[in-house]
Each structure stands twice: as structure tokens, then as C-alpha cells.
């Protein structure tokens, strides 16, 4: 039971990270209908920028840990969002309205480019940092097995909940959210009613990259080890999460992320850790067979 509880906590933490990245996929897919294959690499760039910022702050000797994290969060989100914007501007915008596969191939090319770009600039070896936030609560203890909920895990989950709530507000209340939903339904009509479609798409990429950057800061803090290759698998799983939850749906992305995180944590704990990725993809296949629109997706009406 204690073991189960510990895995539940670990799974939820992992799931929160997947959920944050999945929102980037789901928003982009919702608005321009393409798989932004480079999104995982944006997360990876976020992790690198976060590590660079932490190291610089460490050299300048900032004593307060919460202040340091806050500063790094803001800086990383800004710089990573610039990458999200530039990728859209260079690789996707010229292809908008072109045939379906062109942006996907361009995105795959961009992902390969970004991976090797970071590898060339920062080297192929693993980068690491000492844990900044240590300690945590002991939830229960029985027969020598402690169930701990670390401060870092609390931070990740709390931050995710706050961001999700804020994001839902942005989408449902603000002018930007309205513009996004309009573009999602019909870009031409949205443009006719005075919405700047290009700007809305750009902002969507900025926001998605910002959330991926937050995920990058959090994983860098929590796990402490990064390399240039982390984006691929995490991105793949986050996209799986987005599809699982029903692509285009924000709560769905979060739910899908948490499900994938839990499946991975429990599979690694109770079955074979080597096959945890296989388990995550199998769940995806099963869900798609029985509910092709994902868990919270709207059923699609085929028009003839």
C-alpha cells in the first residue's frame, strides 16, 4: 500500500510535466491542424536555458532559493518562447495552407535541426546540476518504508494546477482566447471578422513554448540531469498524452498527461521498467481503438 502511494505521487509528478508539454501539442493541433514535431525539442531547449540560468545565478551567489527559481522561470519562459516563435515563423508559416504532409516533414526537419544545434553548441555529454530543493514531507511510514512527498514534487504539481487554471481563463475569457477558438473553428471566417490569424497562431506557439519551458525548468530541478536527446521521447509521450485526452482539448491534454505518467510509474514499479514506454504506447493504441477521438475529444462529424 505504501509502495503504491509512493508510485502514485511519482506518477502524478511525471504526469504533470507531460501534461504541460501536451498542452503545446494540443493547442497547435487545434488551431492549425499540424503535429508540431519540434515541440519536444523546444522543451529540451527550455531545459538547457534553465540549467544555464541556474548556473549563472549560482555563480552570482543568489541565496534565496524561491527567488532564484522565480527568476529562472521568467527568463527561461521568455527565451524559450522566442524559439517557439522563430520555429513557427521560419518553418511552418510559409507552409500554411499547403498540403497536409508538408508542415509535418518541415517539423521533423526542424526537430532534427534543433537537436543537433544544441548538441553542437553545448556538447553531446550529459549536463547535471546539484539539487536545489531538498527535503519533503513524510506522508506515512510503515515497516521502514517511507512515503515521501518532496517539496519539489509539491512545487511541480502546484505550479501545474495554477498554470492550468490560468490557461483555462485565458482561453475562455480573454480576447486572445476568443481569437484562438475562432481560428480553430474556421480560419477564413475568423480573418473576415477582423482577427489577425498570423498573430494568433504566433501567440499560440509562444504560449505553448512557454509552458514547455516551465516543464523544462521543473524537470531540470527535479531530475537534475539533461542532454540534447531528452526532447524526443518526452515529446513523443506528451503527444501521446494529447491524443489520449482528445486532441484539441486542454483538460484532455492534462488528463492524458497524468494517465501516461501514472501508467509509466506503475508499470516501472510493478512490471518491467524496461518496457514502460511500450506500456504507454499500448495504452494509446487501446484507447484509440475503442474511443478514436480520445477520452475528452468531441466526436467528429463527417461531412459529405
Amino acid at each position, binding site marked *: 500500500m505504501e509502495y503504491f502511494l509512493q508510485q502514485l505521487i511519482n506518477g502524478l509528478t511525471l504526469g504533470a510535466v507531460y501534461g504541460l508539454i501536451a498542452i503545446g501539442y494540443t493547442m497547435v493541433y487545434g488551431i492549425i491542424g499540424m503535429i508540431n514535431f519540434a515541440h519536444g525539442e523546444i522543451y529540451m531547449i527550455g531545459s538547457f536555458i534553465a540549467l544555464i540560468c541556474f548556473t549563472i545565478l549560482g555563480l552570482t551567489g543568489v541565496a534565496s532559493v524561491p527567488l532564484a527559481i522565480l527568476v529562472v522561470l521568467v527568463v527561461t519562459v521568455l527565451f524559450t518562447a522566442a524559439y517557439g516563435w522563430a520555429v513557427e515563423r521560419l518553418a511552418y508559416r510559409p507552409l500554411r495552407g499547403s498540403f497536409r504532409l508538408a508542415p509535418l516533414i518541415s517539423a521533423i526537419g526542424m526537430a532534427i535541426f534543433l537537436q543537433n544545434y544544441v548538441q553542437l553548441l553545448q556538447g553531446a555529454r550529459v549536463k547535471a546540476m546539484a539539487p536545489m530543493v531538498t527535503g519533503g514531507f513524510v506522508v506515512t511510514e510503515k515497516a521502514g518504508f517511507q512515503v515521501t512527498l518532496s517539496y519539489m514534487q509539491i512545487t511541480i504539481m502546484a505550479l501545474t494546477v495554477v498554470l492550468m487554471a490560468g490557461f483555462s481563463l485565458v482561453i475562455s475569457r480573454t480576447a486572445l482566447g476568443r481569437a484562438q477558438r475562432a481560428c480553430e473553428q474556421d480560419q477564413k471566417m475568423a480573418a473576415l471578422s477582423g482577427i489577425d490569424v498570423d498573430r494568433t497562431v504566433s501567440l499560440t506557439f509562444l504560449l505553448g513554448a512557454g509552458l514547455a519551458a516551465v516543464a523544462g525548468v521543473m524537470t531540470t530541478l527535479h531530475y537534475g540531469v539533461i542532454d540534447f536527446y531528452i526532447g524526443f521521447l518526452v515529446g*513523443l509521450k506528451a503527444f501521446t498524452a494529447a491524443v489520449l485526452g482528445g486532441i484539441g482539448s486542454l483538460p484532455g491534454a492534462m488528463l492524458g498527461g497524468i494517465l501516461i505518467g501514472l501508467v509509466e510509474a506503475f508499470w516501472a514499479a510493478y512490471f518491467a521498467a524496461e518496457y514502460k514506454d511500450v506500456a504507454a504506447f499500448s495504452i494509446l493504441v487501446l484507447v484509440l481503438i475503442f474511443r478514436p477521438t480520445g477520452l475528452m475529444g468531441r466526436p467528429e462529424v463527417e461531412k459529405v
Partner: protein
Amino acid sequence: MTTVDLGDRFGGDGVQWGAILKDAGMAALVALVLTLLLFGVRLSDGGGGGLQFRPWWVVIAVASVFAGRGAVALWIGTRKPASAAALPWFDRALARLSQHKRLLFAGFFLAVAILPLLPVADRRMVDLATLVMIYVMLGWGLNIVVGLAGLLDLGYVAFYAVGAYSYTLLAIHFDLSFWACLPLAGAIAALFGVLLGFPVLRLRGDYLAIVTLGFGEMVRIILINWSDLTGGSEGITGIAVPTFFGLRFTPTPAAGETAFHQFFAIPFAGIHKLIFLYYIILVLALLTHLFSERMRGLPLGRAWEALREDEIASRSLGLNPVLVKLSAFGIGAMFAGFAGSFFATRQGFINPSSFTFIESAIILAIVVLGGMGSQVGVICAAMVLILLPELARDFAEFRMLLFGGAMVAIMVWRPRGLLAHRVPSVRLGPEPPGARRGGPP
């Protein structure tokens, strides 16, 4: 890089330097934000928190973006904007070439057929040509799935891996020859295709893409972890080279055995084996090509194309979409299985690192960059994507960076692929005049 439309800035009196400077300045500003941390600071490897500052890298990067953007703005500004993007000279050249299609095709085929016999052909050249041929064959195989049937498959390499491992395991455990294993490996790969395809082919485009991508990763993870069967990440070594009608390619044949060079009474040379392998893959690739060309005229091939164009209309005409898609998926997988067997025998060893997602991406890129459904396009794209990185060995570190950048650039430049035009397989009524331009089918 910025949202300024340069086209209308150069309407009247020559070059407007102010606009160009502003535009280049904006681009440089963006470049500064992008490069400030990743160029300016180098993290030390491992932990420890060491840093190395290199401000000059940022300065150089920003300056080159400024200069580059300014130059592009000048260049676009001095000519009509449309001609800069669409490159009509490329289309014109293609149209002129395709008038002599048969001649070109025959010449190209002849060149490919005698290539290894030419005096200039050394080991490296034959080896490279073989490599390109493997990708041409994979491209043609995937073209059946993506180009003809319109199913987006991002995990094609899984079937390539299944073919390679089936061949290797059959050859090692049952001591079967290459020629006996080849059809078996193809059949096993096709079976995998059908088994995977059956549950997921009801899904629409992008969902199918992600499921096939997941499947490709699953196969690789299983290959790594099922060490008893597959040798784990070390893989399997000692795969035999096919024999030429029972004649082995070896300098020291066993007692009572005649080697290839002894039978033909020529001195032994290592290149004989390579040339033999080259001809095998050439024949396999041509089989793939002929098969898909014939398929386009047959009812099944027409059903693939009909389903690609309009699923609802085809369904209402009585096509069973699952069966039609499944056949395309299975046949595509079969050719990947053949190519996989050949890959295993050429390498002599296999391990899971040959079957990563990047391989799937390269194969799909070959199909799409060549122009979907265009058989000649696949050849062109395979030559560009495989030969360029090989020739750029001197810049080994920049290889994949250039590869990714080239994929983006070709897509932006020609979103429908290098040879975008496709001749319809079936046509009602006479051919409209001037319709046959662009690439051959």
C-alpha cells in the same frame, strides 16, 4: 524573419535603404535573443556547475544574421517577388527534360546497370551506390503506403527491422540461405504489417501517424530488451553473405569447395562481393518499382488511390476500406522486410541502433521531398538525402544539422516535393494538350 512583407517596399524609386536596415535590424534582434544564452554560455560536462563564456560567438551569429537578412532583402527587392519564391526555371527545366523521358530513363537505367563495372568504380563508390539503392527501395515501398494509399506511416522502420531480424534469426538458427530467407522475411514483415494495421487502420491520418510512430519505438525497445533472442543492444554478428549460385565470395574456400574467383578463373578481389550485393539490391529495387507501377493499373491499386482521394465516396461505391488499406500496409511492410534482409546481409551484423525513428523520418522525407507518389522523385530525393551527408563527411558534426535544415528548406521552397507533378493513373477521356509535363510517373 520578421513579418514585414518586402515585396511592396521597392515599388518606385530604387532601393529603400531605411526599410532594409530596419528589417535586418529586427532579424538581428531576434537572433540576439535566440543566441544570447545558448551561444554565449557553454555548460561544462557532467555536474559541477562550471561555465565558459564566449561572447564572440553571439556577436558573430548576430552580425551574420544581420548581413544575411540584409542581403536577402536586397536580392528580393531588386526582382519581382513571385519569381524569387516559385523558381519557374526549375519547372521549365523539368518540363523540357520530361519531353525526352524515355531516352533519359533508358540512359539512366543503363548508367545504373553498368556503374559497378566502370573502371572508376572503387569500393567506396559501389558501397555508396548500394546504400542509396537501399533507400530508393525503401522509398518506393513506403510510397505504396503513403503515396498511393495515402496512409501516413511514421514507423516504417519497424518493418525494416522485422525483416532484418527475421532474416538473421532464420539464417543463423535454421541455417537457411539468403534466397530461402528473403521471401520468408518478407512474409513475416507483411504479417506484422497486417497485425498492426488491423486494429489501427480505422483511425484518420494523424492518429494513424502517431500510432505507427509508437509501434516503431515499441519494436526497437523490444529488440533492445529481449536479449535472449535478439542479442540486446549488441545485436547479432556473423551474418553470412549470399552465394552466387552456390559460389562463395572468399579468398580461402573450404576444402572441396570452389569460390567465386576460382570458378571464373579471375584473381580474388574484395569488390566482387560488393558488386554482387549491388546487383541484388538493384534487382530488388526494380522489382519494387515494377510492382507498384503494375499495381496502379490493377483494381486493387485503383482502390488505393480512390480511397486516398475520397474515402467516403469510395465506401459508398462498395469498397471495403479496411481491407484495401490493410493490403497496402501489408505490401509496403513486405518490401521493407525484403530491404531489411538485404541490409542485414550487407552489414554482416545488426543491432537496434540501425532502426531508430530517424530512419523512418529519412524514408518518409525521401517520399515526400521527392514529390508524393512520384517514383523518379524518390530516386532524386534519396540521392540528395543520402549522398550529401556522405559526401559531407569532412563536416561530420554538421551533417545532421545540415540534413534537418535541408529538409525544412526543401519543404519551404517546394512544398509538394522536388518533382511535384504526377500523371494520373487512370483518365476519363483524351489527354488534355500539354498535360504531360513535370516528372515521369
